[in-house]
């Protein structure tokens, strides 16, 4: 109480006291005791002085005036009223409603001392009440409460009477106790949420361990206990419950039976927990760190399933029938659940939107505003929440907003993990008051609390104390807990729970007692505890009188009504977009980064080959293939970094939203759709800038599509890791691990045919590389850039025919001849020497296998080429196919026994026919190309060259045609593998589902059909991206990592046990001789 208020109060006291017959002794005494309860000894004197002086002054004026005339008395009262008015107005400005009610009650008490209820005194009190804005009914309540003693008179709704009679009034509430003299009366002042208490009898009744004086008025604060001479004490919560009986509240019974929780490591988190509680209670959970408080909270709230035992809410098993309790439970973790970029209002608003589908916009805003007002956050509602580094609102406000998130839907049971940690004592108290108010509305609230201040400690209705190893060592009234432990510890004053003078309790005392250590002979504390946790548990079990709870079997009321999948998606998306937009740095960087990179990259590599020229020629720029690859790397990098923190950042919010049973897929889809949009924008900006600087013409859409696809793939990868790991550092450490394989196996940096043989593949892209999006993207863009640029598009097919014919003539057919030669030589060797036949035969078999395999394949291929020529009208005459086909009986000859020189000659003959055929193919295709060139040049002089310069790129051409490869043909087992011009080599179509090809294949074959590489590859990447959704949704990665964690911890544990066992054995062996001594 401030000096000013006290002064004002003294003045009021004085004015009231002097009325009628002046200040009575009793009144002076009352004032003195009142001051004593508020102030130190010295100050009491000072204020007493003030009071007596004022009173004396008042009396003097009164006497003077009464001497003059009677009518003056009226004037005096008017003057007094005006003065009272002045004082009250002053008080109005400084005191809260609660305090004002207290002042009013004190004034009544003062009058009540002598029961002198004169008209004048009452008038003054009336004035005070009016100025204080106290309603008439409450005023009457207070009046009745203070002045009446008899049951009959006390029969008002706001009053509660505790006595031993069965007589209960019509309106008043009643608690029956064992024999008690007189009544204990309690008054509720609803507007101020205060309770007052007085006792009319003559027995020793204690309030929080302090004697209640007859007819004095006491504030009945939260957490208070009234100890009666006989029977069970009356708790604050009991009183409140009686008042709440009128309110429409859902009745709840919460029963915990034999709850046990064992960690995966084998440690026991909770042991044999039994308790039950009804609605409208604030239950605290206390314990040293590591005693299982949070484990308890998680098990009680249904977040983790217990190993055994059950939690019944209105008879419904929380863990087995979870769906029936949906929306009944709320959970407020210790962490922040706020979205930093959003305002206070937005945070709550989107949360509300996700909870109430039935509410329309107006209703929602109203609910949110009301909640904000209730929590005193309304004037802060448009402030951004910010983070710890960039504080916009205070810690207390953050905490309150966090609580508001759950509060807004008013769940029947609320679990709160350390709501006061990191808050100032004022903020802590505010938060706790908020929670305790909720219990008044019938909520059941569990709060894990750590070292609560006295006032907070007393707010709890029940306190649960856990000891190391998950032992429940106390459950019951918090103030009694102190008595309980003090008693066991045999302390003096053990029956007093709180400080008799200040009313403070010291919850730390409990832990001092619980964890007291044994002192050794040198007076040093040892590690050993005086009383071990199991012993404490036993103590409690023997003493335990578990209160009976009202069993309830109603269905608990669910306050949750979550919207459907699409509505959720929409809400999630809007919420996320808003938070992203409000983060200016994020937005600007994301928009600028990719075009900037595109610019830097393209600008750096805009190379003009001719030193004498200033004209940029696309054809001569050696850097186009690296540009394509770098673009893909950029896409992977940007895509990964933009998404890598997305889910990680939301993980706490996600945990909570899981609690609300919100759809994870909806959430993920919202993330993905936002990222997809960002990616599309980034990709187009990049391509627009990069491609135009480098003069890549007519490919904007294709480049965009591929970069966009790669971005999305990287996004999906990023989302996966961001859903898996639990720190930003791990995520960023992981990025290179994901990116470097993509770079190394992208096909640009290292040639696929020159990799380690363990992973390499002779005729196809190595299997590991097939999993790299970079490889598909790079291949597709390279192939597309080569095949479909405006220049080559026209010539591609003739070039392909030329290439086929050229390869066959220069490499393939000579290789067959070589094989035939080899057979000849080997046969001669056999005939001549005869020795070492086996090894030679082996060699020969290889040659035959090669001939058979390749020639039979060529049989089918050559027909295809022929048909193609006919289709393209390059050859008009359709002569018999058999002419160029090697007949089956020739293949039959291909074995060491039958293959004589005649057969050899025959085969050579066929090879010659093929050679001639390919000559024709080449000539036809070549002529056609020449004609086409001429046509172009005639149309527009020099246009062939010009188009080539503009649209084609030499270096890219070299790469996809593999011109720098020395071994244009490769012999591998019975196969001849074309290494030359892969871009013109159609893939093998013998495998129906084998989609794998060599690198830079112009087409892809899958399920009996050929597809353009471009579209096939894009499908593959999209398929990979979509597949990545599955582990993302089911959190596979996280599960795998957790599994590894578990394995490693259990291994460690086993090791520890082993060490322990060894030590025990050692100790035993050390002890044994001693025992022997004792025996002696």
């Amino acid at each position: 109480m401030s000096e000013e208020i006290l002064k004002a109060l003294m003045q009021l006291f004085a004015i009231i006291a002097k009325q009628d017959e002046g200040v009575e002794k009793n009144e002076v005494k009352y004032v003195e005791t009142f001051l004593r309860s508020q102030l130190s000894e010295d100050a009491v004197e000072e204020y007493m002085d003030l009071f007596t002086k004022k009173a004396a002054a008042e009396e003097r004026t009164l006497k003077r005036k009464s001497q003059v005339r009677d009518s003056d008395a009226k004037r005096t009262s008017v003057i007094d009223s005006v003065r009272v008015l002045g004082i009250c107005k002053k008080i109005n400005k400084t005191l809260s409603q609660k305090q004002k009610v207290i002042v009013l009650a004190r004034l009544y008490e003062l009058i009540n001392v002598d029961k002198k209820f004169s008209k004048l005194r009452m008038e003054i009190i009336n004035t005070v009440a009016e100025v204080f804005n106290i309603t008439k009914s409450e005023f009457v309540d207070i009046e009745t409460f203070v002045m009446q003693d008899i049951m009959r008179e006390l029969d008002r709704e706001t009053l509660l009477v505790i006595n031993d009679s069965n007589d209960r009034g019509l309106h008043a509430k009643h608690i029956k106790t064992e024999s008690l003299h007189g009544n204990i009366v309690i008054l509720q002042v609803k507007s101020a949420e205060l309770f007052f208490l007085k006792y009319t009898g003559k027995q020793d009744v204690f309030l929080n361990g302090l004697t209640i004086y007859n007819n004095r008025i006491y504030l009945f604060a939260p957490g208070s206990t009234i100890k009666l001479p006989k029977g069970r004490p009356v708790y604050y919560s009991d009183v409140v419950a009686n008042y709440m009986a009128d309110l429409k509240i859902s009745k709840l019974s919460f029963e915990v039976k034999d709850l046990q929780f064992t960690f995966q490591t084998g440690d026991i988190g909770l042991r044999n927990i039994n308790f039950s509680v009804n609605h409208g209670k604030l239950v605290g959970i206390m314990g040293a760190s590591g005693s299982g408080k949070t484990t308890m909270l998680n098990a009680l709230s249904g977040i983790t399933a217990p190993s055994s035992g059950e939690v019944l809410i209105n008879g419904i098993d929380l863990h087995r029938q979870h769906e029936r309790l949906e929306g009944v439970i709320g959970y407020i973790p210790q962490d922040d659940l706020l979205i930093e970029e959003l305002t206070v209002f937005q945070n709550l608003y989107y949360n509300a939107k996700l909870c109430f589908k039935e509410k329309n916009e107006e209703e929602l805003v109203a609910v949110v505003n009301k909640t904000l007002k209730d929590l005193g956050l309304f004037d802060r509602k448009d402030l951004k929440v910010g983070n710890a580094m960039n504080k916009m609102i205070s810690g207390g406000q953050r905490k309150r907003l966090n609580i508001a998130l759950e509060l807004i839907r008013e769940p029947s049971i609320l679990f709160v993990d350390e709501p006061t940690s990191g808050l100032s004592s004022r903020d802590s108290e505010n938060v706790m008051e908020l929670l305790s108010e909720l219990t008044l509305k019938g909520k059941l609230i569990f709060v894990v609390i750590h070292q609560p201040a006295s006032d907070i400690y007393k707010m709890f209705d029940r306190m649960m104390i856990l000891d190391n190893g998950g032992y429940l060592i106390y459950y019951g009234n918090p103030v009694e807990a102190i008595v309980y432990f003090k008693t066991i510890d045999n302390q003096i004053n053990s029956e007093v729970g709180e400080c008799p003078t200040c009313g403070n309790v010291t919850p730390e005392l409990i832990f001092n007692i619980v964890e007291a250590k044994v002192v050794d002979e040198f007076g040093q504390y040892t590690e050993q505890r005086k009383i071990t946790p199991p012993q404490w548990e036993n103590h409690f079990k023997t003493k335990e009188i578990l209160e009976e709870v009202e069993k309830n079997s109603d269905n608990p009321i669910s306050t949750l009504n979550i919207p459907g999948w699409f509505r959720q998606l929409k809400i999630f998306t809007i919420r996320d977009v808003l938070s992203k937009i409000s983060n200016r740095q994020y937005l600007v960087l994301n928009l600028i980064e990719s075009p900037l990179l595109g610019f830097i990259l393209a600008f750096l590599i805009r190379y003009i080959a001719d030193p004498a020229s200033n004209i940029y020629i696309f054809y001569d720029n050696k850097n186009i293939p690296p540009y394509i690859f770098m673009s893909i790397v950029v896409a992977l990098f940007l895509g990964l970094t933009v998404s890598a923190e997305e889910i990680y950042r939301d993980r706490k919010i996600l945990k909570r939203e899981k609690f609300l049973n919100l759809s994870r897929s909806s959430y993920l889809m919202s993330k993905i759709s936002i990222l997809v949009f960002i990616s599309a924008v980034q990709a187009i900006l990049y391509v627009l800038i990069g491609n135009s600087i480098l003069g890549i013409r007519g490919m904007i859409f294709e480049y965009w599509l591929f970069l966009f696809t790669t971005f999305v793939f990287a996004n999906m990868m990023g989302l996966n890791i961001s859903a898996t790991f639990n720190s930003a550092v791990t995520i960023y450490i992981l990025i290179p691990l994901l990116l470097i394989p993509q770079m190394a196996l992208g096909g640009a940096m290292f040639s696929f045919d020159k990799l380690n043989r363990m992973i390499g593949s002779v005729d196809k892209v190595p299997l590991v590389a097939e999993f790299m999006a970079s490889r598909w993207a790079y291949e597709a863009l390279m192939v597309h850039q080569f095949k479909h640029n405006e220049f080559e598009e026209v010539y591609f097919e003739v070039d392909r025919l030329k290439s086929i014919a050229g390869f066959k003539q220069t490499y393939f057919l000579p290789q067959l001849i070589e094989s035939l030669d080899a057979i000849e030589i080997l046969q001669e060797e056999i005939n001549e020497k005869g020795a070492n036949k086996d090894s030679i035969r082996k060699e020969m078999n290889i040659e035959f296998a090669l001939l058979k395999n390749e020639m039979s394949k060529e049989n089918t291929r050559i027909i295809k080429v022929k048909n193609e020529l006919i289709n393209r009208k390059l050859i008009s005459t359709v002569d018999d196919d058999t002419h160029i086909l090697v007949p089956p009986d020739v293949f039959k000859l291909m074995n060491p026994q039958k293959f004589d020189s005649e057969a050899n000659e025959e085969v050579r003959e066929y090879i010659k026919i093929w050679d001639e055929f390919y000559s024709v193919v080449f000539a036809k295709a070549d002529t056609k190309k020449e004609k086409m060139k001429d046509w172009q040049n005639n149309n527009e002089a020099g246009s062939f060259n010009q188009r080539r310069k503009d649209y084609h790129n030499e270096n890219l051409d070299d790469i996809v045609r593999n011109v720098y490869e020395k071994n244009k043909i490769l012999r591998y087992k019975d196969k001849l593998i074309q290494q030359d011009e892969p871009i013109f080599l159609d893939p093998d179509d013998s495998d129906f589902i084998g989609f794998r090809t060599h690198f830079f294949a112009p087409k892809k074959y899958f399920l009996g059909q050929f597809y353009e590489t471009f579209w096939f590859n894009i499908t593959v990447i999209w398929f990979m991206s979509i597949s990545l959704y599955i582990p993302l949704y089911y959190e596979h990665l996280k599960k795998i990592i957790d599994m590894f964690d578990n394995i490693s911890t259990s291994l460690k544990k086993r090791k520890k046990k082993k060490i322990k066992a060894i030590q025990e054995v050692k100790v035993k062996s050390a002890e044994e001789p001693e025992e022997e001594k004792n025996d002696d």
Partner: protein
Amino acid sequence: MNKKILLLLLISFIITVSCNSGGDSNKPPENIGTEDGPIVDPEAINKIIESFSSPIETAALIEDLKVAYSNKYLIPTEVASEFDSNYKKALGLGMLSSDLGYLNVYQRTNSIVEYLTVIRRLSDDLDVDQFFDFQTLKRLATNNEDLDSLMFLSVNSYNRMDEHLRKTQRSDLSALMVTGVWLEGLYLACQVNKQADNKEFRDRIGEQKNILNDLILVLKFFEKKPHFPEIIASFAELKELYDNVKITIQVGESKSQLDEKGVYVIVQDEYTVVEMSDEQLEEISKLVEKIRNKLISA
């Protein structure tokens, strides 16, 4: 504001994409014909072509003359990389081979690499690059080592390219290549001769009369193909000039000498006597230059 930016981006994106799909007017029709006159039997011309000189020969002569190097004689590589039709490419490939020979004489390593690059590109375009071991040639040239093997390799690849062209029914290109080698060689010889008049050199230029006749014979096989009539016409013009050059073969005295196996054999030397006036030489030089320049110009 953000919405506006996005809208703008969207619009520009649509515009670029739709511009992309704009048709291209200069695409040759698919049904373009491939009829290209009669296919010449390679056997008939092979023999003639094989008798022609390789690019090294002129170079060897120039080497003995010891005249100063001039890059003015050479075909600029920029010009060469502009060759677009196979006709030009084959011709250019031959001409550049002669230039390469010239460069080799003066050991101009940097230029050699430059010319090799163009030659490789041309041979690549003609699909004869498989005979052209560019990497090795480049290594030899840049390391300035063993220029003889460089010469050998390039001559070798030249021969194989030529052979392959004929084998793949592209004798016309082979003929053009040979023509290119010959013409550029003759041009270089004329230019060098201007620098230092030399009897032997003059004779060599004069002796080309016979080769020119053969060449015209070969080219006539392909006179139905585009561009060939022009060359034939130019060469016919040149032939007229050469017609005035008299070449007589005189038989020298017979003498005996030891052969490699240590056996005495009787050898009779033949002398070619070329009668060519300065005016004639100059006219030939001028016309050669004219033809050559016309061929390499676009």
